[in-house]
């Protein structure tokens, strides 16, 4: 197991080649995707609480909607990386 470790490090570090393992455009795309994933997870809890609150009192619809989409700002901020690369 240990004897292949240097070999593995070579591959990971792309020894002998100048190109990075993940090109910058792909890295930016990954960043946006991961941010969206986080936003989705955050919205899961908020959304179900908001639906519960609206079911009890319909006046809370607007408040609930605003809180539900708040984590969406994560994705918007992550989009900046697309323009930076």
């Amino acid at each position, binding site marked *: 197991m240990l004897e292949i470790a240097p070999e593995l490090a070579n591959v990971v570090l792309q020894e002998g080649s100048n190109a990075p393992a993940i090109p910058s455009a792909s890295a930016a795309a990954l960043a946006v995707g991961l941010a969206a994933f986080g936003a989705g997870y955050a919205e899961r*809890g*908020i959304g*179900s*609480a908001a*639906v*519960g609150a609206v*079911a*009890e009192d319909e006046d809370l619809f607007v408040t609930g909607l605003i809180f539900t989409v708040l984590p969406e700002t994560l994705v918007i901020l992550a989009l900046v990386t697309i323009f930076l690369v």
Partner: protein
Amino acid sequence: MSSHGGTSNPEYVNARVRSRRAALFEEDDYRKLARMSPAEIARFMEESPAYEEQINALGSRFSGVDLIEYALNASLAEDFEDILSWCEGALYGHVARYLRKFDAWNVKTVLRGVYADTDREAVSDDLIRAGEFDDRLLERLLDADSIEEIVELLSGTVFGRALGDALDDYESTGVLVPLENAVDRAYYKLLRTDDLTGEALSEYREFLEAEIDFRNAINTLRLARSGADIDPSEYFIEGGVLFSAAGLRQLASNTDELIQRIRESRYGEELSEALTELEAAESLIGFERALEVALLEYADSLGLVHPLSVTPVVSYVLTKEREVDNIRAIARGKEAGLGPEEIESELVVL
């Protein structure tokens, strides 16, 4: 009945429960209610969103205190059924654990009804349809003609095994006590807290342990007061932290020691005033109310530390129960002609 599978959804349930909790009566409202006539209380309840539907539905058939009583029961049942139907996954188990108390009540009511040959209508009125049993099972229980048939119907439920075991005792002695004890024991056994691990559930566990400890304390005090020669360990409920079966037998004969034990426990601080009163006035009623207030205080702070767990739901269940008890006490007190001050002293408020 709702699904038991899936993941817990505390966010959804808590949002709904908190909204309902905000609509409950406050202390000022009780003060107002204590000065109203039964008809006015009914009108006051109609204005509250929690009871509006029930008062309107029952208003044509009943009036006065009966209307209030039926509306309270209906509202309680509907509320708790709603909560159970919202819960999913592990949360359902935790909430149902506490609400099975109403199942135990219903089973005992049906058993007593059959034993005393009461007519179906009267037994049906006394049921609180708030537990885990669905209406179909309750209807079949009401239709049953014999104790054996009821035990048979319940064989698939959580009370099945305990009742089956107690049936022989019932048949040989002819009294209901073994069966009623079996139901209570089965309920408290299910409350057992061994499987509630984790930080968020530790609060809930503490609350359930307090409930069991208080029940043990009250039972022992009652036995000591009545002077009956009954072994208190027969009525001992497992799961508390304060007493053991053997210790309780000793304490039953020495009330001062029992009070001392409670004073030194983790409940001592909250109960110290009531304990002093108990030592002096020797009145159990005041002490029982103090225990209820202590439980309610527990419930009030439950769910503040871990908002996304079962605790806010249990807190609401307790508060709602207390509200229903309080309004019923007010209405009954009015009917009996008590003054507002006397009624207020009977209420359990924070």
